[in-house]
């Protein structure tokens, strides 16, 4: 099974220095684990961009032996080069992060690659639970929920922040790893050239105002701590209280005994 990992250069959110991209590192972590467990797994890590970027060594330090770098010029579109390269190696699985940290960061690359490879795609992957002729992946949803999705191979799996933490890079492995340069065509990105970039400045926004006749009432609605509906039971018996609580939770659909099966390790 051929597993391709698409790696990009990240940007540290505080210092702005180049680093390994967190989500791509999580994808690489999963790929390295797959390479150990899946028989005849063949790992192929690809980066499109500057081969001399120092932060690429962090990926090698995680345990990669070889990183294929497509030499795409700064500001050019990396997708055509990636597609051409991946079409040559025909991977069964493409792992990557949901979106890049630096540059445009539109999160389109996995989708464009899936379109070019005619592969299936599931977004926000947090883990892979089974891999054979088809893949079973775990998708992270908002509010900590999870979904299990079975999909056909070849598949592109972009990883979400809920995936397991990547291992720390080792210095010696980072030195030992090989960066293999590939010549690639640089297609200029006309759309990005038409865009205007300035420093981001947070601006105040006028959002929906609370309805109210007078300014004093609106001010009160904006600033006052919210009061509840004010349904109060004073000194009920414990059974009455329990029944009231149960009915309230069921009525507002927070309690559904059939659907919410607690797991075995729920009690610590």
């Amino acid at each position, binding site marked *: 099974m051929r597993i391709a990992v698409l790696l990009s250069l990240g*940007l540290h959110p505080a210092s*702005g220095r180049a680093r390994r991209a967190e989500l791509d590192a999580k994808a690489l972590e999963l790929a390295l684990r797959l390479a150990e467990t899946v028989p005849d797994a063949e790992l192929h890590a690809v980066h499109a961009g500057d081969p001399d970027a120092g932060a690429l060594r962090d990926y090698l330090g995680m345990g990669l032996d070889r990183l294929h770098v497509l030499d795409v010029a700064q500001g050019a579109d990396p997708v055509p080069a990636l597609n051409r390269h991946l079409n040559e190696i025909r991977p069964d699985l493409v792992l990557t992060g949901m979106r890049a940290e630096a540059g445009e*960061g*539109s*999160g*389109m690359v*996995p*989708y464009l690659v899936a*379109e070019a490879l005619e*592969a299936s795609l*599931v*977004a*926000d992957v947090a883990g892979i639970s089974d891999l054979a002729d*088809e893949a079973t992946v775990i998708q992270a949803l*908002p*509010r*900590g*929920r999870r*979904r*299990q*999705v079975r999909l*056909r191979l070849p598949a592109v799996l972009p990883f979400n922040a809920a995936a397991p933490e990547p291992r720390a890079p080792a210095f010696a492995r980072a030195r030992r790893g090989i960066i293999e340069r590939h010549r690639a065509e640089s297609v200029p990105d006309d759309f990005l050239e*038409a*865009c*205007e*970039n*300035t*420093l*981001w400045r947070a601006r105040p926004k006028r*959002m*929906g105002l609370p309805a109210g006749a*007078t300014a004093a009432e609106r001010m009160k609605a904006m600033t006052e*701590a*919210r*009061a*509840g*509906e*004010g*349904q*109060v039971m*004073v*000194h009920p018996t*414990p*059974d009455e*209280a*329990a029944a*009231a*609580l*149960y009915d*309230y*939770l069921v009525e*507002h659909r*927070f309690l559904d*005994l059939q659907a*919410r*099966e607690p797991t075995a*390790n*729920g*009690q*610590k």
Partner: protein
Amino acid sequence: MRKRRDPRAEQAARLLPGGPRPRYGLKVVATETDRPRRNPRAERKAATVSESPRLRIAWKGGVAPQAGTLDAPASRGAPKVRIIAEPAFHVLVIAGAGEIDRQMIGAARLIADAGGGAVCIASSTEAEDWADAGADRLMPLSGLEVGTYDPEAHAAAVLAAIASLKPAHVLFPETPGGGDIARRVAARLGERLFAGVEDIRDGRAIRRANGGRDAMSVAVPRLLSIAAGAFARHEGAPHEARRIEGPGFEPVRKGIMQAKAMPVDPDSIALAEADFLLSGGNGVSDWDAFAELAVLLGATRGGSRVVCDQGHLPRDRQVGASGTLVTAGCYFALGISGAPQHLQGIQRVGRVVAVNTDLHAAMIKRADLAIVADAQEVMPALIRLLAQRKDTAE
């Protein structure tokens, strides 16, 4: 009507001749100009726009009476529906992500109103009042099973809607589900998606790029996705939300074969993410019963600062200003009186259920359902009831 007086002419008539300085006599001289006398009360009345709820006077004119004036509802009747019959272009909004739908319509109105366009909402559910939200057209996306995860079919339906309506702009929600559909559609169309737009100003859409450091702006493109909470919802007159024919679409190749929700351990969910929180305070002393109740409810456990200080719960389970600001849909507080710092932590919670012995506790005031009782006595009763209901359910 009396004529207006001329005070200067009256003074000039009282001037006595001779002497080095001007002297005026006391004789009363009546003068008249040819202008009629002013009536300040009538002028004020004519300029008054509204008297209640507050007095508004427009001396310079040109102010429309506001909603809420005394006589306005009687004269206007129902709010006037704005109809755009022949739009110059369409702005298609892909709905289905909850609260952000209305913000997207707000953003779409900004684009449409700048050039005489109409907003068309494509929705697979019909429960919403789209007219009030500001949509001109409603295109039902039929054939999609509600509640199932099938982004490929959803993207195909959106592609069919784009092909049939030929909109100038398509707006997607930048939510986990909506962003997925947006990128599938953009990849299939081979067009650029301007993702996570935060502002639209002077005909340019603005998003954040380069890790949020840069503002990237471009003339409003064809495909864009709207960041949550970035735009205000439409507040003006309702639009007609006329139903138009939804497109039929071809089933696509299926990469995703099966999807099902997985059970998760509620305590593994981060406190800020959890949807249902069971929180204990100083009124709880039996922590085994508390854990058992959490398991039966399927709730994530949390606690006040006091119980985390005492070591009954780990520090990362602390709710409040010095712990976690939670966003749960339901917050079930047992034996928590509600210190101000704790109430700050639950400011964005949907519903609060509280059990506390003190009728005058701040938490009882904040709660939607408040029970003044000892949490230690209510807990076993609730555990019994839940276990019993669970047995009958099975």
